[in-house]
């Protein structure tokens, strides 16, 4: 599945595409909400490794504006709950992710993103 936690890790890897290749932009996406068990420690501990701006942007692209533009210093339960929802409960089932730099399209179908490249695109 593509959830926003995964999207926050993916980058374009077409040969020569090394700048502005993260984050990928969502295009024509269909989403599905699935409740997931809330583990506050998990969310709190992974926080330092997120690219906050990319996450806020991606959330907006799938219709969620609950996150503040700047990473909050205080991680109370309310913030962790919101993060939990954004990172783990929104599933992108169909659509695509597009590289802002080289415009390569990574399709998403049946919840599975296709990160394969054709031979001439491999770096």
């Amino acid at each position, binding site marked *: 599945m593509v959830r926003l936690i995964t999207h926050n890790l993916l980058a374009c890897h077409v040969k020569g595409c090394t700048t502005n290749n993260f984050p990928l932009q969502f295009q024509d996406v269909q989403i599905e909400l699935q409740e997931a*068990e809330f583990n506050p*420690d998990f969310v709190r501990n*992974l*926080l330092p*490794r997120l690219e906050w701006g990319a996450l806020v942007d991606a959330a907006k692209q799938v219709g969620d504006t609950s996150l503040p533009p700047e990473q909050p210093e205080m991680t109370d339960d309310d913030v962790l709950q919101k993060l939990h929802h954004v990172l783990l409960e929104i599933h992108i089932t169909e659509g695509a992710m597009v590289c802002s730099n080289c415009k390569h399209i990574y399709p998403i179908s049946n919840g599975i993103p296709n990160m394969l*490249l054709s031979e001439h695109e*491999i770096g």
Partner: protein
Amino acid sequence: MSSKDVIRAAVLDDPQSHEDVHVHAIYDKIATHFSSTRYKPWPIVAQFLSGLPTGWIGLDSGTGNGKYLPLPYDRPGSVLTIGLDRSRNLLHIARTAGQNPSPTREVVWGDVLGNGWRSGAFDYAISIATIHHLASYERRQIAVERLLECVSPSHGRILIYVWAIEQDQLSKRNVPLDHEALSESTEPIVGQDVFVPWAMTPQNVKAKITSNSKLQAGSSDSSDGPETCPPPVYNRYYHMFAKGELTMLVRDAAKALKIEVGVPEEYTEPGTRGITVTQDGWERSNYYVELRCWEI
């Protein structure tokens, strides 16, 4: 010859096409049957995943049916492992890996030689029984480089498992060893390219044929039934690793990325990146190596 025997092979075509025919196409065909035989986590892999701090995110490069994605069983949901595989049919199975009802797993369709992650994004990476499917030393080295690149340079942990020439006595496989080559010398360390047959069980074949004949209504002929049809055998390509070969591969990959192999105490220059080999062993017909990244 029994279908459990391993056949010697040579990579004659280019490695990419060789893998397409002798690895990727086969896993897509045997996905369901293969998955039904692969459900038990190997203890060292389970132990590795149990030892990870809560909140860590990892990559399972070559996840297959995703059997490691639900781990650790004693702390479910404490870490998140994302599964990457070349076989879309296996990924469909991996998506719901685990005991029912199972939360949806994160899976990505991709190649282990690809680099579709922001650098150092993961806290850990595992590659279990995957790198031995790559058909040249260079490609196997790139696969290890990709693992080193995708984990945090300061605290990343990596576990790699590959198939060994040295087989367990209890192993079901019968390997034709080139004893002369093995005993001659330890340098250079060279593994062996083989085909490992995957025989579909008659039951599995029957199910497939029945469903096919339903599609072609009226074409079924009882005399040509599934019972008379021998189950198909698919020869999967493997590179069986020789003793020391996996360690050498890791050292070469580290060298290519200017990563030192050793303990941080041995280095003084700030900005030095390194890995410590914390485990290096053989278990149940496989070689494995565990690495920890450090930065000073």
